[in-house]
Each structure stands twice: as structure tokens, then as C-alpha cells.
């Protein structure tokens, strides 16, 4: 069953910057969908467009088949109970003036689900569930470590029992050993609470570990999409290939620095708005079309689509 569908979603900032450009994707209930991209790819904007924390410029959002784009703020509130976000930075995403009890209990209070002792009890139960000491309800966020704060953020997001959880770089501010704990917690919670995850990250190894499907964003648009297995085994798009090459492996015998990589970066090699958006940095031979025609996202093999002129379906072995 499809839980979330985006059709041609676009967000233009200030009339010029196409932060999210014609993005369409479908997420199945119970799955973990990874959205990969570097800074400036528009992945965080996309996260905020879904519950309409930012208003889309055009396009459609369907949550469990219901269109969201025309709902009024008041009618949106019950939907927002179902879609929650865990933010990247555990230091800025929690109000420093609120205690843990207030932070985790606030959603219940706002939606009038519980109050008083019942609320306290639910907060404590939630803290136990995410691995926090329920004795610490009166503490403030700054008394916790980064990993613990992210647990508070998760508790706050799941206390309303949402169906879809958007995880915006949930572990990128954390140390690896803490990251492992938080990722495993997310996996456990998904199993027990039957959650669907949209995991937004720049870390390919996190996607590989956590996700069923993945979409790669580059300058606001999806350049490759498919199952994690296919994309990591046989990346089709030159951008995906370069990214996979550039993760520094912990195996010293796998030499990454000797291989060729991407030239420049998004800022120093800007896209002029014509042709393929990756063409200014693309390392492979460029045909004329790359500079003039924007490639469409086409099926390469079953379960894998890419937007590149150089990728022809018959060139990829299934």
C-alpha cells in the first residue's frame, strides 16, 4: 500500500532558486525510503514540503491517497499528527527552555490526547521506549549528550503514533558509536510501531544499512532512483558512481585517493539551467545533448531509473 506520493513537486525560492524541481516519488507503507544528496541538493527542503511546513510552489502531495496541497492550516493538523519529523541537529531542534517532560509531552498536550498524570505516564513510557532514563523528566536538553538529545527528538516525534516519520539527517551530528545505537533504535521502533521512514541523509553507508529504496537528489531533482541493492551494486548515473567511489573506506587496502573523482563543486561549477544539471561536473565524455537537453528519469532495469543521456537501458546488464 502506498502511504506517500509526490507528483511533480516543485519549490521555487525568491522566484529564481529551484530548490526542489519536479520531484515525483512513491513510498510504500512500512518501508524505509532513503533520500540521498549533498548540501544544496534540496533534500531538506523536500522534507519540510511534505507536511507543508514550507508551501510548495506547484505539484501534488498525497498522504494515504488524500491530497494535502489544498488543505487549510486547520484541516492540516490531523494530518500532521500522522507525519512527524526528526531533525538533523539535536542541539537546535529542541527548545532549550523546555524540560524533557514538556518537550516529549507537548504533542499530547496540543492535540489534547492526555494531560496531568496520564501525560506524565506516557512521557515516561516513551522515554523508556527510546532508551532514556525516565527519572530525567525534569532535565533540560543541554544536560544531555547529542545521542540522548536525538532520542528525545525521536520520542517527541513518535508519541502521537504517527504513520510516517521523516528523518532529516538524524545521525549526521553524532559520533559513529552513538550513530550505531540510534540507527538500531530506529530499526527497533519501526518494527514495534509499524512506522514508515523517509530517511534523508548525505551518508551512503547509512542508506545502505537502513533503506529498502533510495533516490539520489542533485540540485533539486532526482537523478537516480531504485532499490538499494541495485543502486549500490550497479549505479547507472555518473554522479552516483562518483559518490560511491568517494566514500572513504575504512579498509586501507582499498585506495580511493588514486581514482579520479568529480571536478569542482556545486558552487564553483554552476549549472546554467540548460541541459543536464550534472553536466558541469560530469567526469565522463559529454555528448552535445548533455549541454542542451535535460535528461528524463527513465527506467534502466527493473527497479532502477536514472536521468542521464549516456545511460541507455540496453547498456546495463540486468
Amino acid at each position, binding site marked *: 500500500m502506498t502511504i506517500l506520493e509526490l507528483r511533480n513537486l516543485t519549490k521555487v525560492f525568491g522566484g529564481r532558486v529551484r530548490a526542489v524541481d519536479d520531484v515525483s516519488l512513491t513510498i510504500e507503507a512500512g518501508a524505509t525510503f532513503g533520500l540521498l544528496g549533498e548540501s544544496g541538493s534540496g533534500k531538506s527542503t523536500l522534507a519540510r514540503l511534505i507536511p507543508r511546513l514550507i508551501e510548495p510552489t506547484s505539484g501534488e502531495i498525497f498522504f494515504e491517497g488524500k491530497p494535502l496541497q489544498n488543505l487549510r492550516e486547520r484541516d492540516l493538523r490531523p494530518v500532521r499528527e500522522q507525519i512527524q519529523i526528526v531533525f538533523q541537529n539535536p542541539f537546535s531542534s529542541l527548545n532549550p527552555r523546555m524540560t524533557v517532560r514538556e518537550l516529549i509531552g507537548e504533542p499530547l498536550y496540543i492535540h489534547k490526547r492526555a494531560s496531568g498524570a496520564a501525560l506524565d505516564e506516557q512521557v515516561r513510557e516513551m522515554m523508556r521506549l527510546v532508551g532514556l532514563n525516565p527519572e530525567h523528566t525534569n532535565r533540560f536538553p543541554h544536560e544531555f549528550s547529542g545521542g540522548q538529545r536525538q532520542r528525545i527528538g525521536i520520542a517527541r516525534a513518535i508519541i502521537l503514533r504517527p504513520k510516517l516519520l521523516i528523518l532529516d539527517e538524524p545521525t549526521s551530528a553524532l*559520533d559513529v558509536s552513538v*550513530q*550505531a545505537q540510534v540507527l538500531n533504535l530506529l530499526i527497533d521502533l519501526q518494527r514495534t510501531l509499524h512506522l514508515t521512514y523517509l530517511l534523508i541523509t548525505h551518508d551512503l553507508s547509512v542508506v545502505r*544499512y537502513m533503506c529498502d529504496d533510495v533516490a539520489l537528489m542533485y540540485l533539486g531533482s532526482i537523478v537516480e532512483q531504485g532499490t538499494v541493492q541495485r543502486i549500490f551494486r550497479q549505479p547507472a548515473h555518473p554522479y552516483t558512481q562518483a559518490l560511491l567511489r568517494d*566514500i*572513504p573506506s*575504512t579498509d*586501507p587496502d582499498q585506495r580511493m585517493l588514486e581514482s579520479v573523482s568529480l571536478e569542482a*563543486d556545486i558552487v*564553483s561549477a554552476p549549472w546554467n539551467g540548460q541541459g543536464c544539471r550534472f553536466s558541469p561536473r560530469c567526469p565522463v565524455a559529454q555528448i552535445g545533448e548533455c549541454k542542451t537537453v535535460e535528461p528524463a528519469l527513465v527506467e534502466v532495469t527493473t527497479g532502477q531509473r536514472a536521468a542521464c543521456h549516456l545511460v541507455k537501458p540496453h547498456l546495463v546488464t540486468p
Partner: protein
Amino acid sequence: MTQSAQPLVEIRDLFTEMVTFDGVSKVLNGVNLTINKGDLLGLVGETGCGKSVTAMTIPRLVPQPPARYTRGQVLFRGEDMLTKQGEELRQTRAQHIGVVFQDPMTGLNPVFTIEQQMVDAILTRQQSLHATGFFRGWLPSNRERRRQARERAIQLLRRVGIPEPEKRINAYPHQFSGGMRQRVLIAMAISGRPDLLIADEPTTALDVSVQAQILRLIAELVREIDLTVLLITHNIGVVAQLCNRIAVMYAGNVVESGPTREVLNAPKHPYTQGLLQAIPSEDIARGELVGVAGSVPSLLTPPPGCRFAPRCAHATDRCLTAFPRTIAVTSQHEVACVLHEAEAKTA
């Protein structure tokens, strides 16, 4: 590389405390670390393990107070940095040490052009050789020096891979991307032809593709100019790809150090093993990631014995009370853990 290893930095038994409201935090607990000339040493550890304090103690960039050095020596080119002060300290820093910080956004002053900042950095380094005092920028001879400094700045920018450096040098930092700013900072750090380059998480704020470019640049520079690098990072992958030696820190101690290949292929300390297992890799199935259980101890009241013992699966009663000594497992591979005492005798 191995036979004529000449130490550039020798940190011996360094104890450091931070005085805070909550008490005295025992930040460094007897750190021993040697950096040989020509080394590319990766100092790895998680937030709060003391890796930045250790590294920044070499140029003495750790503010005092709150920091307090209670014991130990930090020998740089054979001289103890802990006893240096004032002008002498400034001279050593200017002539022999270059530092690159984590955040390329705040490392450059937004109101000056790249030229102004680089020329200043280069001249400051020269001035430490012949101090001209207050009027330095005004004298005609100094105008000539400024021109030369500009030439040198352009040369350096070209070297670190800034395209069209003659034009770009007039730009302001905000006109540069994060990767380019980090290149500029590296150019500034090596402008004084330092013996030691300290890079504190130089690629943490960057995208992977840009990170790869910067790492490649550092590797090239080390090969070209006579440079020794101390790279501070929490990313073991970066060390594996770039460094010839690695030192792993945990809660104020170097728990394991040695040649990168040896340490990463056969980690001896339970913490190093845990760290490596915590990184999601290709062959780990969902939910199977192990990681390191528990959390970092408070350094206000650290465990009396091995600081890792409370989180260690192999800890014995002895680990909880006695501080482990450092054992050489092979000629260069050292580990601070009682589990390997037997190996030490045979080695």
C-alpha cells in the same frame, strides 16, 4: 620511512585539566604520542576524547584558563612547548606550525578579500623574522614586500587548486564554496613553509565528493613539500585512505597507535574494534550493527582504572582498578590494554 624515523613532536605523559563550575575535568590522562618527520598521522576519536586538546597543545592554542597542564612534556623540534611564552612562542608558531580548522565558513574573515587575508598571513610570518613595528604597511620598501607577498599568495592558490588565482584572489570569502575556502585556508597554513600542519577535522563540514578532493590535495602536498601532518578526525575512513599512521584516543588517553594498515586490519584494543564495527559497511545486515554499548564517562569523575573498562566486554576486576600500561605488540603497534600483555612478552 621506518629506519631513520626522526621525531618532530613528542608528547610525553601529558596530563591536562579543565576547570569548570562542575569541577575539574581530567581531559588528558597521560597522553603519549610521537609524530615523526614526514608522518601523516591520523588522530581519531569521538567527541570529547581530547584529540583537539592534544593537538592544539603543540602550538599552545588551548586557552589557559580553563586548561591547566599538570604534568608532562610537549617536545616540538626538541624544545618543550609548555615552557615557552610570549614572543618565543609566537615565533615558533609562525615559522614552524600551520593550522587548518574544521569550519571553512568561519575560518576566513568575511569583510576582507582573500588577497588581504593571505598577504597579511604571509607578511605576519615574515615580520616575525624582521620586526618592523607599527608602520610596517606604510613604508615604500614594505609596499614592495606586499607586492611580493601577493605574488606568493597567487602561487599558493594555484598550488592548492584554485582556478584563475589572479582573478579569484580579489574575491570575498562568501564568493567561494566551502571546498574552495578550505583550499584557501590550507594555502594560508602552508604559506610559512611550516614543518607541521595540524588539520582539525578539515573535511567534516564538506560533501563527500569535495572531501575526496581536499584529501587528495593534502596527500599531494605532503609528497611535494617537506610536510608532516597531524590530522584530527572522527572519520576512520579518512585516516584509512590518507594516513600512514593512526592513533586512537578514548577519554583522554591514546589507547592504540601504529601503522594504519596494521591497526585497522588487526585492531587490538576493544575500543578500536568497537569503533570499526560501528560503521555500517556493505556486509552488515539491517539491525546487525554492533557498535560500542554505553556512553563516554564523565571526565569529572573518570573511572579509576582503564577509562574504557565500564563499556568493555572483556573487562576484568583488574581493569576497573589498575590503569593499563602501553604495550608494544609489534615494533610500532602499541596498545594500552591488559588483554595483550601476553603478546608483549613474546614480541
